[in-house]
Each structure stands twice: as structure tokens, then as C-alpha cells.
């Protein structure tokens, strides 16, 4: 019995690879398993290699797994790209329609040629070769075509019952072909009980419903991989909730619209990725100085410039923390799993309103475009309150023009806000430095007061967790990460614990305000700090050095190929660092 199952389908883009993966993944989820996915794709519509990996586990994981047990290949390229990932005892199922097929010599892998295209043709249409392949998979892992029926009914039910049945029939043919010609199987681990509150959801979908739960009712966005899906969900949901989506002409317009909507009193967001985020830099400063709430979701991808639009990276740390000229208060959140993507995005709207400043929520392609399991979301925790608005009663008590939108005496620097429509609450939001009422000025003393007022707002901020730690007290080796790599790191950590290494795992959830107090004790206690991140310059490690110190302790594991991390590559580095610690002791 295998601990978990790694399954992958590959072929040319536009061949239905994505939907094959979706059907397999959702079906396994509905059987009670925890499912994590990873889509490999390219920035083109037809042709080019694409594959979808599905990992089936009995516990919730934040990684699609190193190991591959079953590979479904619709073309030669899939074999060439992925065969090496198969474990001993794994299965390659390939379509005999592939011309002059070449399969690497490996007697430890089960080679399963199946006439996928021919069987599908026989069943009614070559389109259904995907179903035939799922049928063959089902035979290997001890499932039946009926286990996929509910997903097929949801997908094709609206096209008529016979569409569902013909797909099931094609699946059955694939199943029968395997049973009639082959015998080897993989036993799936025992099924966990499916809890009805569990969700199978991508990071981008979690961003969308998090924003909706946080009260966002206006989205202005320009399409960009890998953030576009955020729009789709809003286009579907906002009309039912009294909100609207505007497809902007570019990311500058998108962010300026979002600022305009927030100024008017509608909770609003924009979502983007690197190139769009770069275009938003000037506006970020405007939101900061005008004290207008703003939520930007940055679904990071590999840069610089256009970079690798379909590949993942965590290289926007500097831009998120320091981008835009001048100095503004800002909050930068780095959710570490899809559940946190939901909660952090939701909370971003309350924080932006409370502190009247920009909030950046950083996800990435790896988390955003892939689907993960969420255990549950508690509806009772979702209530939002409007914050820091002046009441009409208060405004009525003032003389005309007396309202101080940017009152420097306000507690914690957070002054009351008004929105258009409120009598006697008039002010002008602006990117120019201004006085307390909101009049442009260049008077030095007032300038300093306004700068200090804004900076004060986030002093002592602890509304969102800064970092979490697991491990022994005073662990010698400290693994550090932020954002989506946390899930992989947890597996690395568990392996090291199993091997008896004195190790701790510190995972950062917030880059600004930087959680110095949350991380410093662990860094100070550790002998070596291994920072793992998906960029080439160690952007997080540089922050740790700046905010915490301990420069001689740091080691980095950096990956910037565009591919997500593998457990084994981080583990190898961690073991090296652990071994160097031992050596130091014996010396």
C-alpha cells in the first residue's frame, strides 16, 4: 500500500489535458482523499507540452509531491519530459496512436500501451480518449468508472444524460482493456471520511471568495496570467451581491479605479502579477499619502519583465515591501496555504479600512492556479464591521470646513474618514503633501507632522499572525520560508525530525510590518538558519539580516528555474547544513 499517490496526465496544449486532470482530482477529493495539484503549461494556446499532476493523500498537504506513480501520456513529449519521475513499480500508460513511440528502458516501471484513441473512436468519439485513460487508471488503483460518475454528471449533465453515459462507457472500455490485458495494481491508502465542509479550491478562487467575504464589491483588473481567474469568479458572483467588475485598459487604470472605488466607500480590490504590479507603483504611493484603503493581490510569477509568464517565483519581495518612490505605511501579507489565502484576503479589506493604507496580499502561480484541499471555513468568523468613518452626527456638530480629514492629533495617527454624500465632510484626497484639512502645502513643519502621522499607524501592528514555528525549543537548524513554500518545507521538516535532526520550522506570514519579534527568538537560538525561497538573490534572507541580524548564520536554498520546489532537493541541502553543524561540534 502506497503512502500517497502521484498521478500525472500529459499531452499537447488544447487536447483536454486540464479537464482530464480536473475530473480525476475532483473525483478523488469526493471519495474522501486530500488532493493537491500542479499544472505545467506554457504561454500559448495550442501545441506545446502541458501536464497536470495530482497528488492523493490521507492528510492535507501543501505540495503536489516529488513522486509519480502513474503517468498518462497522450504524446511522445509527455514521456520524454516526465518518465524519469516515475517511481519503481510505477506505471506508464501511453496511447498506441503515438507514432514510433520511444519508451526509455526501465524494467522497474510497468509499461502499459493502450489504444486510447482507437477505443475512444469505438466508443463514439476520439475526444473521449481522456475518459478511456481515466478508466485504465481506475483499474490500476482499484476504483471503478462509477467512482467518477458524480463529477461527470456535474460537468456534462446539462448536455443531456447520454453524454454522461457515453463518457462512463468510454471509461469502462479503458477499465476493461486494462483488466483483460494487465494484472499489476497499486493499492490506494485507506480513504479518510469525506467531511461535507471540505473544499477543493485553487488559490485564485480562494482569493476571490476571500475578497467577497471581506466585503469587496468592486473589482477593476486587467487580465494577466496567473491572476486572471480572480476576475472570472467575481464576474459570476458580484451581480448577485450588488457589486461590479470593470475590465480596465491597463493595470494603471485598474489600480486607480480601485483607489477611486475605495475613496467613494466601496470595498474594492485589484489583482495582478509582476508586470502589472510594476505598473501600479505610483498609485501605491497615492493610496499611502492620501490615506485611501487599497487591496492589491499580487499573484507572483517568474520575472523580470515578461519573464516566464506561466511559471512560479517569489521574487516580488522587494517590490512589495519597498516599491514606489517616497515612504508610505503598508501591510504585506504572505499566506502560506490556500486557507490562509482566503482568510488573509478577507481580512485585507478590514485592515485597509482600519489603517487607511494599502494592503498587498502575495500569492503565486504555484498556489494561485492549482487546486488544494481546505478542511473547513467557519461562517461564524466572517463578520465585517465598517471602521474609522466619521458619523454624520459628528460632522453636523462642526462648522463648515472644520472637518480635519488628516487630523494629526488622532489616536495612533488614524484619523476619521468621510465619503462623498456625507454633509459637511468635504475633503480633497490627494497625492500632494497636505495639511490637516486636506489642502496642498509645502510648509516644512506640517509636512513632518503628516509623515509622522502616517508612519505611526502601523506601529505595534499585530492584527495578523507574523510567523509560526514548529519544532523543539532551541533547535540547532532552523528552516525559514514564507508564503506558498511553507507546505513543502513542512514535509522537509518532518523528514528531518524523523531522522533525529535538531530542527525547527519557521514560516513567515507577513512581510510588513516585518514580524521581527516573532522571528528573532528562533533565529537567535539557532546555530544555522536555512532560508528557502524561489528567487535568485535571497530576498527574504536579506530582510532577516536587516531586521534581525545574525549574518553569519544564514544559508540559502534558492530556486529560480520557474518550477516549484521538490522536497528532496531542499532536504538534501538541509542535510548538508545539518552535517556541517555536526562537523563543527567534532572540531
Amino acid at each position, binding site marked *: 500500500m502506497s503512502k500517497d499517490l502521484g498521478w500525472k496526465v500529459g499531452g499537447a496544449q488544447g487536447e483536454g489535458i486540464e479537464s482530464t486532470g480536473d475530473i480525476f482530482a475532483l473525483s478523488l477529493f469526493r471519495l474522501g482523499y486530500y488532493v493537491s495539484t500542479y499544472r505545467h503549461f506554457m504561454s500559448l494556446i495550442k501545441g506545446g507540452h502541458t501536464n497536470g499532476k495530482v497528488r492523493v493523500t490521507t492528510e492535507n498537504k501543501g505540495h503536489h509531491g516529488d513522486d509519480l506513480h502513474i503517468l498518462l501520456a497522450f504524446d511522445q513529449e509527455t514521456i520524454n519530459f516526465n518518465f524519469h519521475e516515475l517511481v519503481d513499480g510505477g506505471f506508464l500508460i501511453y496511447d498506441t496512436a503515438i507514432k514510433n513511440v520511444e519508451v526509455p528502458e526501465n524494467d522497474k516501471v510497468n509499461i502499459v500501451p493502450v489504444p486510447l484513441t482507437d477505443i475512444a473512436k469505438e466508443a463514439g468519439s476520439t475526444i473521449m480518449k481522456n475518459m478511456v485513460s481515466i478508466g485504465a487508471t481506475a483499474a490500476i488503483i482499484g476504483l471503478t468508472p462509477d467512482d467518477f460518475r458524480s463529477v461527470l454528471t456535474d460537468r456534462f449533465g446539462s448536455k443531456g444524460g447520454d453524454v454522461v453515459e457515453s463518457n462512463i462507457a468510454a471509461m469502462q472500455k479503458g477499465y476493461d482493456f486494462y483488466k483483460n490485458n494487465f494484472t499489476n495494481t497499486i493499492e490506494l491508502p485507506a480513504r479518510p471520511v469525506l467531511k461535507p465542509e471540505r473544499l477543493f479550491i485553487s488559490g485564485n478562487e480562494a482569493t476571490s471568495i476571500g475578497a467577497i467575504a471581506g466585503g469587496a464589491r468592486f473589482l477593476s483588473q486587467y487580465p494577466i496570467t496567473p491572476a486572471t481567474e480572480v476576475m472570472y469568479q467575481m464576474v459570476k458572483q458580484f451581480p448577485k451581491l450588488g457589486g*461590479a467588475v470593470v475590465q*480596465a485598459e491597463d493595470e494603471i487604470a485598474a489600480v486607480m479605479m480601485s483607489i477611486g472605488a475605495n475613496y467613494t466607500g466601496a470595498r474594492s480590490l485589484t489583482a495582478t502579477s509582476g508586470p502589472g504590479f510594476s505598473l501600479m507603483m505610483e498609485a501605491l504611493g497615492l493610496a499611502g499619502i492620501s490615506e485611501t484603503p487599497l487591496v492589491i493581490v499580487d499573484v507572483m510569477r517568474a520575472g523580470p519583465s515578461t519573464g516566464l509568464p506561466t511559471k512560479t517565483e517569489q521574487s516580488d519581495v522587494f517590490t512589495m515591501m519597498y516599491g514606489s518612490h517616497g515612504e508610505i505605511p503598508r501591510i504585506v501579507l504572505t499566506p502560506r496555504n490556500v486557507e490562509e489565502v482566503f482568510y488573509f484576503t478577507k481580512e485585507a479589506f478590514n485592515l485597509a479600512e482600519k489603517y487607511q493604507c494599502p494592503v498587498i496580499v502575495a500569492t503565486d502561480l504555484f498556489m494561485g492556479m492549482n487546486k488544494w484541499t481546505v478542511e473547513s471555513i467557519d461562517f461564524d468568523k466572517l463578520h465585517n464591521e465598517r471602521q474609522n468613518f466619521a458619523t454624520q452626527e459628528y460632522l453636523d456638530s462642526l462648522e463648515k470646513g472644520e472637518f480635519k480629514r488628516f487630523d494629526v492629533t488622532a489616536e495612533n495617527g488614524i484619523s476619521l474618514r468621510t465619503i462623498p454624500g456625507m454633509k459637511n465632510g468635504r475633503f480633497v484626497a490627494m497625492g500632494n503633501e497636505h495639511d490637516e484639512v486636506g489642502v496642498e502645502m509645502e510648509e516644512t513643519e506640517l509636512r513632518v507632522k503628516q509623515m509622522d502621522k502616517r508612519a505611526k499607524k502601523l506601529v505595534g501592528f499585530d492584527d495578523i499572525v507574523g510567523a509560526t514555528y514548529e519544532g523543539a525549543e532551541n533547535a540547532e537548524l532552523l528552516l525559514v520560508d514564507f508564503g506558498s513554500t511553507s507546505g513543502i518545507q513542512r514535509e522537509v521538516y518532518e523528514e528531518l525530525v524523523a531522522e533525529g535532526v535538531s530542527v525547527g520550522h519557521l514560516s513567515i506570514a507577513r512581510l510588513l510590518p516585518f514580524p521581527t519579534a516573532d522571528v528573532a527568538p528562533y533565529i537567535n537560538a539557532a546555530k544555522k538558519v536555512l532560508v528557502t525561497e524561489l528567487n535568485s538573490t535571497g530576498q527574504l534572507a536579506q530582510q532577516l539580516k536587516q531586521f534581525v541580524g545574525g549574518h553569519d548564520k544564514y544559508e540559502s536554498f534558492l530556486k529560480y528555474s520557474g518550477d516549484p520546489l521538490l522536497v528532496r532537493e531542499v532536504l538534501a541541502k538541509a542535510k548538508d547544513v545539518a552535517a556541517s553543524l555536526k562537523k563543527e561540534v567534532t572540531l
Partner: protein
Amino acid sequence: MATLADFRAEKPNWCPGCGDFTVLAALQKAAANMGLEPEDMVTVSGIGCSGKISQYMGSYGFHSLHGRSLPVATAVKLSNTDLTVVAAGGDGDGYGIGMGHFVHAMRRNIDITYIVMDNHIYGLTTGQTSPTSDKGTKTKTAPDGSTDEPVHPLQMAIMAGCGYVAQGYSGNLKQLTELIEGGMKHKGFSLINIYSPCVTFNKVNTYDFYKQHLINVDEDASYDKTDRFAAIKKIEETEELLTGLLYHNTEKLPYHEANTAFPTTPIVKADINLNQENWGKLIAQFK
């Protein structure tokens, strides 16, 4: 009811004689004439001398970024359709750095009024070539005279689907007030391009120059302002030296009415909390 005084705010610090004084006065008069309350109006401006108008207007204001008044104004209107929204700026702001937004806001037909104080020069940065500078204009950045074709905002607006295209002149407060008022009443995007002389840095496009050359189509009973092609022809024939309501199309629906999915209640009034039923439906798609 609000009076003209309610639409006054900070005292303007434009150069004495600047055309923008008249534009501000016309905007204030138009708002008062329409019976607006200052809190129900928002003036969004860009950067430049003209961008300061949001601070001088007694409505709510947003003095935004250079070239970006239109996306802000778009969202203000869409977030609260009960508001009257005016965007304002200069020729550099709107037709240079902000040109992209200009075309797209008109295509979308957002129900806002866009006032452009066109002085054919960059004033606040002390006299560089602007997108509307005539060919041959000598400036600090084009000492031998500009060779760039000037943009033609009126024709562009008509081609981009703007349903209210007007041109005013700072020497005629009465007509300008009427044009702005008409623009604010128009349901959809309205453009009022205004020849607003820069008395400090533009010695060509002066009050005298306009007084000599401008013709007023509002005084021409035979002019058909509903005819797109006639409007473009007239604009071309006069080399853009004309004032009045040049093109008017009352048939197009503004964005928030044309989009059937757009909420009928202002978005700012939407509940920021979900009820259990909505929540249940929202997450059902992920099971």
C-alpha cells in the same frame, strides 16, 4: 438649497489672468444652477495647473496622479451612481500621459463630465511642448519648433463614441457654463475641451488670438449637432477654432445602464457581509 458660495473652497493661486479662473467659475455656476448639493458631487483632477481645480471647487475632491483622473472618476461614478462626477485636467494630463484612459472612458460611456483646460503648453513645469501644441510651436523643449502632429481631441472623442462633445473658451463664461451644465446633464460621457489661455508661457494662443479666430456654432441655427460626419467636417473646416456643442447623441446608454448585470442600487450601499445562504451557494462550487 446650495448656493454658488457653497461651491467655493480654497482661493485659487493660478497666475492672474489665467483662463482656468473662468473654467472654475463656470463649473461652480453650472453646479449651482443644477441645484446640486456640494456633498453629492465629486471633482477628480489630474496634475498640472489645471489639476488644482479640485481643491478650489467646493465639492468632494480627488487630486489624483498625472494623467489618471479618468480611472478614478470612473470608479467614483460606478461605486455610487447617485453622485455627479466631474473629471478635470489639462491637455498634457489628458491627451499626453492620460491619453489611453481618455479613449477608454469614452468607449465605456461612463456617465461623467470631462473638462479639459487646453492651453497648448505645459504650464506648471514652465513651458514645454504639449500634445495640442501646434506644429512649429517653439518651446524650451522644441527650440526649432515642434514637428509633431497635434492631437485632435474633438474628432477623437466623436470617433471613440463620446455622446457629448463640446468646446468652450475661457473668454466666454456664459457659454462655457451652459456647455458644462449640458455635459453634466448628459447621460453618458461628456467632453468639454476648453481653450484656456496660459498667460505666462503661451504667447500665441492668447485671448486676442481666440477672440479673432473662434466661431460659435451655438449661434448657427443651421448646424445639426446630431450629425457625426457634419460635426467632424465642421471641426476640420474651422481647424478646430470653434466653440459650442459640436456633437450630441442622446441615444446611447451609459455604462451602468447598458450593462444589465450592473447593480441598480449604488455599490457603496451593498452589504459587506454575506448571509448564510449566499455563503453556502458561494462555496458549493468547490465541493
